[in-house]
């Protein structure tokens, strides 16, 4: 039993580290996953001192880990929560990982007897901002943790949505946010398959247009989310 759940956990962790659905996660969810992962694999709370307030990332990670340790008393509870999040992101037991092109594979050939002075090889093994040029991508604002209906959708938080509906069954799933988007618009645009599925199960209206006159399926189409286009085009019921 123990082994089975451990391997499910490993599979889920592997899935999350490669799945594109994980790329768009909010920092809050990423941090929760991080905290759970550390708790399950290492210790209930971090052993290192809390990073300085200038190391925003390090500090947030430390806090997340510590929170996981304080929330769950047993590892199995933490694992259950981890798997729950993984499932909401499209992971299922036995899912086959897409074979991503692995540029590291080539480095496996032995070019040097590995007497690396016992110094551990870097895990992320590029040269972040090394000598030469510098790789850049678009700078992002800090994601805020928003627990409203639309906020949960934007964070791809299926579990949160389910809980919200349990607590407030009367919530209007077709409500527009201040920018004119319904939850279905947002989920279809961001490519959150399981949230779209859930909203359709709850009979969300797929014909509503946003302020640009786009329906959910048109948004998914523009963004190239084929699976969601299929879902939205399939007859309801």
């Amino acid at each position, binding site marked *: 039993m123990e082994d089975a759940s451990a391997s499910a956990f490993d599979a889920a*962790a592997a899935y999350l580290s490669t799945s594109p659905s994980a790329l*768009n996660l909010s920092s809050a969810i990423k941090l929760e996953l991080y905290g759970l992962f550390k708790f399950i694999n290492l210790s209930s709370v971090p052993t290192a001192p809390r990073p300085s307030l200038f*190391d925003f990332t390090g500090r947030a*990670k430390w806090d997340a880990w510590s929170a996981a340790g304080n929330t769950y008393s047993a590892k199995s509870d933490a694992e259950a929560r981890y798997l729950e999040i993984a499932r909401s992101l499209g992971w299922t037991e036995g899912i086959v990982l897409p074979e*991503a092109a692995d*540029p590291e594979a080539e480095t496996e050939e032995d070019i040097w007897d590995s007497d690396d002075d016992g110094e551990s090889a870097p895990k992320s093994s590029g*040269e972040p901002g090394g000598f030469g040029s510098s790789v850049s991508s678009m700078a992002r604002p800090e994601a805020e943790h928003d627990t409203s209906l639309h906020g949960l959708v934007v964070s791809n938080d299926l579990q949160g949505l389910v809980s919200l509906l349990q607590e407030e069954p009367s919530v209007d799933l077709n409500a527009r946010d201040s920018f004119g988007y319904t939850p279905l618009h947002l989920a279809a*645009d961001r490519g959150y398959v399981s949230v779209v599925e859930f909203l359709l199960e709850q009979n969300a209206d797929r014909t509503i247009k946003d302020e640009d006159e*786009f329906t959910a399926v048109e948004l998914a189409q523009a963004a190239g989310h084929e699976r969601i286009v299929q879902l939205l085009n399939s007859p309801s019921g």
Partner: protein
Amino acid sequence: MASHEIEEIIDTTQENPSDSDSELDNILEEQEAATPSTSAKKKKKKKSKAAKALAALRGKSEIPQELVDQVLDKVKADGAVGSQDATEDNVRQALEHMQIMEVAKGKAGVGGHNKKDMGAHKFWATQPVPQLGEGPPIDDGYIEPSKPREEVRQEPYPLPKDFEWSTLDINDPNQNKEVYDLLSVNYVEDDDASFRFQYSSEFLQWALKPPGYHKEWHVGVRVSSNKKLVAFISGVPITIKVRGKVFTASEINYLCVHKKLRSKRLAPVLIKEVTRQVHLKGVFQAIYTAGVVIPTPISVCRYFHRALNVAKLVDVGFTYVPRNMTTARMIRMNKVSDTPTLDVRPMEEKDVAPLADLFTRYMQRFDMVPVMNLEDVRHQFLSGQGTGRIGEEKEGRRVGQVTWTYVVENPETHNITDFFSMYHLPSTIIRSPKHGTLEAGYLYYYATDVAFEDGADEDGRLKARLQTLIGDALVIANQAKLDVFNALTLMDNVSILKDLKFGAGDGFLNFYLYNWRTSKLAGINDEGDAKAGRGVGVVML
């Protein structure tokens, strides 16, 4: 703060986020490579030195002013949350609060970035570069006088056992491929390890072989037993003018050490060896760039990105959809016209002389610029255009096309009134099931004769013209099916980035001069009277 992707968040082996190694770590350490037999002893000595320094610092309540300034600059440049509230006082307080020596030794990071930077100073303290906190020089000039050839060290620096030096011949397709293979797997990645530069063979041919290049400046390290290329550094000659003073320099680039050898301390010895080779040719200055801060940047610029293929950029995590938008709306907003506004055409051989003239006159606007003769202009702007017809192999491109240079010709005088150029540098998308390559174009040099009209800068005519001109570069980039168009905050770019819908990137580029002092050049920010960007007129590849 840059976003950190899932892999980093759920990493499996790293206990401490600041443990990760980087090539520059190696520079921190004393150069043990040269003396492998005594390295153990040296390490011990090093430790006691560090302990002494630590003790000395503990006794001192004062945090060094330059450190406070540097942190403050960095926090502001990063634009992290709350950075507008950062003041000298609370920075000082925070530095006292954290284990400051850890930073100084390079073990902890500031804002999670540029770990180890401070520690790298140990190597750089031995080099003729301005040291941190030196303050602006009174006069521009060299730090160390040039030496006659016979006084330059004649024998190569020693390498660790089992490695050997190798001069790379970029003309030889096999050796070109070796450099390509080394770089494409081991070269610069972003902080999140999502994208890695992928310099093509054609790109390397173009970048490493400008007029007057020396093959001895293409320095490689091989494993003696199987001759595998495991490290590389290059220099190419460049004539630069910095605040009116012209000198020959070596443009140093592509320092790359195989991932498995990052602990071998190869970087310092590579730098020393290429420096020796440069000295042997009678050149004693160099220019180089880095994403990290080492002693001492003469300028720092920020990357900006103009999305062209929005859906792909969102899909691979290069950009994001703001809360108030959808991808569909971003696609509409970023749509570029199908045809250029100006009457642009690809540069031809006959344009070399007029373009060179326009370029030289235009570049006088900036404090640090390359000086190009006709041969240089032909190489930089014409030689990378590839072969065959546009669209022959890939849509919007010639075969092996690396650069695009377009000119505007006055129909009456046949003078070249404007030009822009860009180069194509793809990145490998490290993990995406759907896309393997990010096709990026980079804004290279440009010029317009509107700049020479009286008052054109002040009344906005220059800005308007540049906006149209670079807007046309976006059209050409889009026709060439590039996904994104990148530019730095240098030259006149700052004035047009916003209107052309560029967004701020999370990457910064620091500019350095070796053995040359000059005060700070305006890059990301104004410096004195110089407007942002106008200090820097050198675009590095």
